[in-house]
């Protein structure tokens, strides 16, 4: 019955748990002896998962292991103690064991999930994996157990019956003595009777035994009944329990199956995910493969494209080269044509027409024009006649390893380039003129060649060309391989970055402070050299094969903004000039300036202004007012183109002047001839019928010039008288006769109106003289013209060629305004030779002959004079054209050309009075200009940014 209770309790535990219990019991307690071994083997599998994943073999083994202890327990009729023993240890065991799989003291919250994973998963998996396979076995187990317990019950019953049978309290209920007596009575002897009885008893006993054997006593029956009843109750109970356990087993099985299903489901989803990711992966792989293919194709395409482009470029280059060749050919042919044309014209014009224009111009191609323009803009102060600017590399001044191409702008290396001894340089055609102020050129690295040992810099004339710039004395360079600067030394100083193919390196020489800096791709790299000597040549040096560089001396726009840099230095220089200390004697400075101004006014005959100025500044005018007026009058005539009158007046007022100065006279006459052609000279004009009033008063002969109010002889007399008496008398006399001239209002008015037309600015000074209309008019007309005259006088003066240029360039514009208006007024009437009158033409031709004679005479007396000859030739060539105004020599007819003549005459007059032939102001300006030229020659760069012009407002 004890066993029964043990067996009955057991199935209550859930199978998993029970298994655990049993197995652990087996392992730990080892109670059932050595039979625990298989269970131990399973032990390590318990906390881990592998068992679950390998259900096959191990589950079987596990099943076996599970069965054996169960049988043992059931088969051995253990005492209660033995049954309890395996139960407690599992409980104890379970607690410590629960540690490792489930980490202790894990944090709350999400940690729960975390913890459950290792703990639960193996358990579930284990259970799920193992159970379905041993399900049947458990059922079998249960039934076998029942059988066994019944069998045990029978055995017990047997043993008990045996006990009962052998108890021996049997009794024989019959009187043997009575039987013997009966027998004795009936004839048996006592002995016989006894024998019979004993035999009978034996038989009976035996029978009884037999009967007893088969007979059941009531008590026995009851006991048995009781026993059977209890047995039945037991069985019943057992049945119920079993039934219950079976249910739970089934339920758990059900549960397990559910779990299994779940797991399967999960597996399936996993599988699905896997498949999906696989496909995704495949997709990605495929994608990347396609991408790669795409990029490969693209690269190929690109390559092909670049190839195409390069081919195109090559083609283009070839085409442009051919184009350029054709262009040059055409230009050459054109030049030739032009020159032939010119020759023809010259021939037709009687060989007297000169070629005033440099016809080579047309041969300059676009690039050269561009270069010319840019150089002019960058270096306006440079006189290219004197100091030409570098425009290309010199084919002569180079080492033999250097090759030049593309108009001597491209340099390439053609040596071996093995050692530094193979270095080679080339210089530009000309040194850098100091008048540049700031000079700049750029070099583009077309190819860095093998090693890129390129040097860009400067060197003086005569420096060894078998070297890179910078290695020798008076040689300076910046090298591409290391970015060092070499200042007349074989070892470089760290200077800037290295440079290589595609870079544009610029070199800027500052001739003001004699420094040099480089630029790379338009970025200034800072000062490289200081204290540079003058007259350096742009230089490049190459050292290894394949190195090619292109120079840009202004052919193309520069990458670096050099003009901005120049602006800075221009501002600096001008600020320096403005701040130049004048000295502490302020007053003297002031007086000096006033003197200069007044002398200038006097020189040019602005008598009223000069007077007013002198009054207000407490100055004395050296020259008499009358003398000034006389000069003014003559100048006015010259500027009006009325040369005949001018000569006449001069001869009247200054009789010996022209005689002493045959060259001047000749110049005046030539001018007169030109004015005749122009139709402006008084002799011609009156013939042209434009001035009827004076027409008859002008005789045909030029000599006896007669003004209506004054006879020449009278003038001559006065003059001779005056010269005899001395200056005072002379002037007073002149005054009287000049009155006559001035009274000639027709001329004056004409002159006046004409100059008003010129549209010149009427200066405020005019208002001072409003009362004297004639003077006012003269003033107006002369104001600007005189300035011109003055500049021209500078120009004519033998040294100051610069002044001439500047002066004319400044005032050209104004004069042009004047011209056009004059021409507008004259175009209707006298766009014809000598005003269109036949008489005038005859007169002009006659005058020409006289001029020719005079020239011959002059040559005889004073020897050859090329200037005069040219002058005459130019003047005569006017006649070679049907429209002299638009002919190549037509500029002679320009009124501007009167000015040099005018100023020459003025100077000559002044000289006769021992007065300076130039005003001090003009002299100062000329000196300043000259000084700038001198600065340029002596290498002082500031001259570039200080032109006299800037200060003439």
């Amino acid at each position, binding site marked *: 019955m004890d066993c029964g209770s043990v067996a009955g309790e057991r199935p209550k535990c859930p199978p998993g748990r029970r298994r655990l219990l049993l197995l652990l019991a087996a392992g730990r307690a080892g109670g059932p002896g050595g039979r625990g071994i298989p269970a131990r083997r399973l032990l390590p599998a318990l906390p881990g998962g592998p068992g679950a994943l390998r259900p096959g073999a191990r589950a079987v083994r596990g099943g076996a292991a599970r069965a054996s202890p169960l049988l043992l327990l059931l088969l051995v009729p253990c005492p209660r103690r033995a049954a309890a023993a395996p139960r407690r240890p599992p409980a104890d065991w379970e607690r410590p064991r629960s540690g490792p799989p489930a980490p202790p003291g894990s944090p709350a919250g999400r940690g729960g999930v975390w913890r459950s994973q*290792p703990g639960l998963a193996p358990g579930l998996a284990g259970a799920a994996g193992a159970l379905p396979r041993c399900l049947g076995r458990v059922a079998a187990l249960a039934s076998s157990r029942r059988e066994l317990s019944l069998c045990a019950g029978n055995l017990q019953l047997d043993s008990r019956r045996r006990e009962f049978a052998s108890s021996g309290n049997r009794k024989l209920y019959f009187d043997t003595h009575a039987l013997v007596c009966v027998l004795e009575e009936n004839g048996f002897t006592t002995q016989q009777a006894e024998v019979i009885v004993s035999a009978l008893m034996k038989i009976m006993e035996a029978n009884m035994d037999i009967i007893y054997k088969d007979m059941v006593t009531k008590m026995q029956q009851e006991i048995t009944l009781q026993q059977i009843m209890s047995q039945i109750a037991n069985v019943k109970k057992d049945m119920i329990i079993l039934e219950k356990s079976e249910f739970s087993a089934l339920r758990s099985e059900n549960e397990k199956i559910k779990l299994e299903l779940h797991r399967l489901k999960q597996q399936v989803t996993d599988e699905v995910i896997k498949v999906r*990711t696989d496909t995704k*992966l495949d997709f990605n792989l495929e994608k990347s493969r396609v991408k790669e293919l795409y990029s490969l194709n693209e690269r190929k395409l690109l390559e092909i494209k670049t190839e195409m482009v390069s081919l195109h470029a090559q083609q283009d280059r070839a085409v442009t080269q051919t184009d350029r060749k054709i262009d040059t050919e055409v230009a050459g042919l054109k030049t030739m044509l032009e020159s032939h044309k010119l020759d023809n014209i010259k021939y037709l014009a009687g060989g007297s027409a000169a070629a005033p224009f440099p016809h080579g111009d047309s041969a300059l191609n676009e690039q050269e024009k561009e270069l010319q323009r840019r150089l002019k803009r960058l270096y306006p102060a440079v006189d290219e006649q004197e100091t030409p600017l570098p425009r290309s590399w010199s084919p002569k001044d180079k080492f033999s390893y250097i090759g030049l191409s593309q108009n001597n702008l491209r340099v390439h290396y053609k040596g071996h380039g093995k050692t530094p001894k193979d270095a080679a340089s080339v210089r530009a055609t000309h040194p850098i003129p100091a008048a540049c102020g700031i000079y700049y050129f750029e070099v583009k690295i077309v190819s860095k060649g093998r090693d890129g040992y390129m040097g860009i810099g400067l060197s003086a004339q005569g420096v060894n060309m078998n070297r890179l710039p910078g290695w020798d004395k008076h040689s300076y360079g910046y090298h591409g391989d290391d970015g060092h600067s070499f200042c007349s030394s074989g070892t470089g100083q760290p200077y800037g970055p290295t440079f290589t193919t595609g870079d544009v390196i610029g070199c800027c020489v500052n001739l003001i402070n004699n420094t040099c800096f480089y630029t790379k791709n338009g970025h*200034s790299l*800072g000062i490289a050299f200081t204290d540079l000597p003058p007259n350096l040549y742009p230089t490049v040096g190459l050292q290894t094969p394949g190195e090619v560089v292109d120079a840009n001396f202004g052919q193309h726009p520069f990458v670096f903004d050099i003009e901005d840099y120049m*602006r800075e230095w221009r501002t600096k220089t001008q600020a320096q000039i403005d701040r130049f200390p004048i000295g502490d004697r302020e007053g003297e400075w002031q007086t000096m300036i006033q003197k200069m101004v007044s002398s200038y006014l006097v020189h040019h005959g602005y008598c009223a202004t000069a007077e007013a100025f002198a009054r207000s500044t407490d100055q004395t005018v050296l020259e008499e007012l009358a003398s000034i007026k006389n000069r003014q009058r003559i100048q006015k005539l010259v500027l009006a183109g009325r040369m005949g009158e001018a000569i006449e007046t001069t001869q009247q007022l200054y009789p010996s002047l022209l005689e002493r100065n045959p060259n001047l006279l000749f110049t005046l006459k030539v001018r007169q001839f030109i004015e005749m052609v122009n139709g402006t000279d008084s002799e011609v004009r009156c013939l042209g019928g434009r001035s009827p009033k004076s027409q008859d008063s002008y005789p045909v002969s030029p000599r006896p010039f007669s003004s209506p109010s004054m006879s020449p002889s009278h003038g001559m007399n006065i003059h001779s008288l005056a010269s005899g008496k001395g200056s005072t008398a002379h002037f007073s006399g002149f005054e009287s006769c000049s009155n006559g001239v001035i009274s000639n209002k027709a001329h004056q008015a004409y002159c006046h109106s004409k100059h008003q037309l010129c549209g010149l600015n009427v200066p405020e000074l005019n208002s001072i003289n409003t009362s004297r209309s004639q003077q006012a008019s003269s003033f107006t007309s002369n104001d600007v013209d005189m300035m011109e005259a003055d500049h021209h006088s500078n120009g004519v003066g033998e040294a100051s060629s610069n002044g001439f240029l500047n002066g004319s360039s400044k005032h050209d514009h104004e004069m042009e305004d004047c011209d056009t208006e004059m021409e507008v007024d004259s175009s209707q009437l006298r766009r014809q030779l000598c005003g269109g009158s036949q008489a005038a033409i005859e007169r002009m031709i006659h005058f020409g002959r006289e001029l020719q004679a005079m020239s011959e005479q002059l040559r005889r007396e004073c020897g050859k004079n090329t200037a005069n000859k040219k002058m005459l030739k130019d003047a005569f060539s006017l006649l070679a054209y049907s429209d002299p105004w638009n002919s190549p020599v037509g500029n002679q007819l320009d009124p501007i050309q009167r000015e040099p003549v005018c100023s020459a005459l003025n100077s000559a007059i002044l000289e006769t009075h021992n007065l300076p032939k130039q005003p001090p102001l003009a002299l100062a300006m000329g000196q300043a200009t000259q000084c700038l030229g001198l600065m340029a020659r002596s290498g002082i760069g500031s001259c570039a940014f200080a032109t006299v012009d800037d200060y003439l407002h």
Partner: protein
Amino acid sequence: MACLLETPIRMSVLSEVTASSRHYVDRLFDPDPQKVLQGVIDMKNAVIGNNKQKANLIVLGAVPRLLYLLQQETSSTELKTECAVVLGSLAMGTENNVKSLLDCHIIPALLQGLLSPDLKFIEACLRCLRTIFTSPVTPEELLYTDATVIPHLMALLSRSRYTQEYICQIFSHCCKGPDHQTILFNHGAVQNIAHLLTSVSYKVRMQALKCFSVLAFENPQVSMTLVNVLVDGELLPQIFVKMLQRDKPIEMQLTSAKCLTYMCRAGAIRTDDNCIVLKTLPCLVRMCSKERLLEERVEGAETLAYLIEPDVELQRIASITDHLIAMLADYFKYPSSVSAITDIKRLDHDLKHAHELRQAAFKLYASLGANDEDIRKKIIETENMMDRIVTGLSESSVKVRLAAVRCLHSLSRSVQQLRTSFQDHAVWKPLMKVLQNAPDEILVVASSMLCNLLLEFSPSKEPILESGAVELLCGLTQSENPALRVNGIWALMNMAFQAEQKIKADILRSLSTEQLFRLLSDSDLNVLMKTLGLLRNLLSTRPHIDKIMSTHGKQIMQAVTLILEGEHNIEVKEQTLCILANIADGTTAKELIMTNDDILQKIKYYMGHSHVKLQLAAMFCISNLVWNDEEGSQERQDKLRDMGIVDILHKLSQSPDSNLCDKAKTALQQYLA
């Protein structure tokens, strides 16, 4: 009039000082307006250029009376104008003068005066306002308190060249910050001021230019508008470029360079635009040259630093332009020894600018050396550069210190310099000093520099560790400032890289796991990344892994799960997988992964992820797990095979990514062996 009542009291105190000025004030109270006018004119003449007289008049209470006269309806315009002129003259004096004027509420009175129809009076008011607003004691908010003021000023811009000059000047001084910029912009400042750039008056042009420079500063909206503004058929940037020409006054060059710089930084002009590369940059470099005034040099250098800060190409160009690096070395030569003896005034001037010069130079060096190794080398090779920086670190001025640290930080990005110059000059010493109790802005730069110094190849690492860097950095990770947190954790990460067990333990101890978790859930992605990096570095080399995992295994695994489950970007996940791979490399730590099916599933998932990096990282993990030579590898291999890892490996071994392919093949070999 309330103020007037106080005057007798003040007067009694200062009676003798003010006695001479007394009658000027008295005349203001004359009943005859003509006399009052004469009095004001006399006062004007007395006050000009005489600070003492100005102070006296203010003390005597002339200001309230003048303001009263200014606002009085009955006053003639002439009187009003003269009053404004006197007030303007008073404002020209000391800062105290301006304060007293402000106390009398002069600004509303003057603004009221602007409504007058008389131009002369308006100009006088504006001149006075200009003087007051340009004073540092005036709060610029006063200009914006009344919303009608700005439109009115805009309208006045067309009146005369004086109004133009003064209004532009007021704007350029009162435009601080994006709010003001927006207000001015919305009232059409750009259109109204743009045409002033072509004004004949130099002053107007200059003030307009200054106005634009403040408007464009860090303001993309304004900058974008400026780029497209046409003035006389020319775009504004072209006009600015013209103003950059070298023959223009320096002030103009500098200010227009600033305008262009700000427009460039605000994204309105590209950094490779010619007007930046060929004009603005060279101009700013010129401003740094010795010939310029000290103030110009400071401003030039600072602007240049700002311009080139984000662009390597500009840094390269600037570094070769006009020997800029050598030029900057001159910034440290003030006050020069010569000036100290010969000229006290000059010395004073030098001293005043010395700090500014130094910090400007440091800033520019920092910008120059930010990205290019060659430039850094050039900077360090400049004479005494390191000494100067080290001295700069301990200078009293915060600005200089900050700039020096920034410079040093830039330079510390160079491995070579870290190993040489930084070591030679023991840079870490002053740096650690700077880090103590420094303001946040310095801390940010200094700590990020510390990151560099703690790199494993840096020889400074040891001494820095010894001076208690770990605690300091752990402290930084708890800062409010995200930049500081990043730097702190970053430095720790660098420190942990290939470090000894002791250091790692130190880090873990002083950081504490709670803090670690806090950082892992930080909102800043950078912090998260660096924390993961730290974990990864902590978990390297087998013994360290086992050691750390044995003590912190649970938390770490938890953290890893957390991140892998969370919504993070690829990099974060990759980093996390790498941590797993590291864990898988440990001997005992492996078990933590092997027993965690969840993690295994995740690894498996990431092996099939579309991103190659993640695949690779997961691959590392797997190959560590299946590695043959180690104990228990068979079982792990079995388990993983059961999970279907092998199939994936096969697939991955066909991958186009060669790295991944190789890895997969090696892992498979482990199975075969």
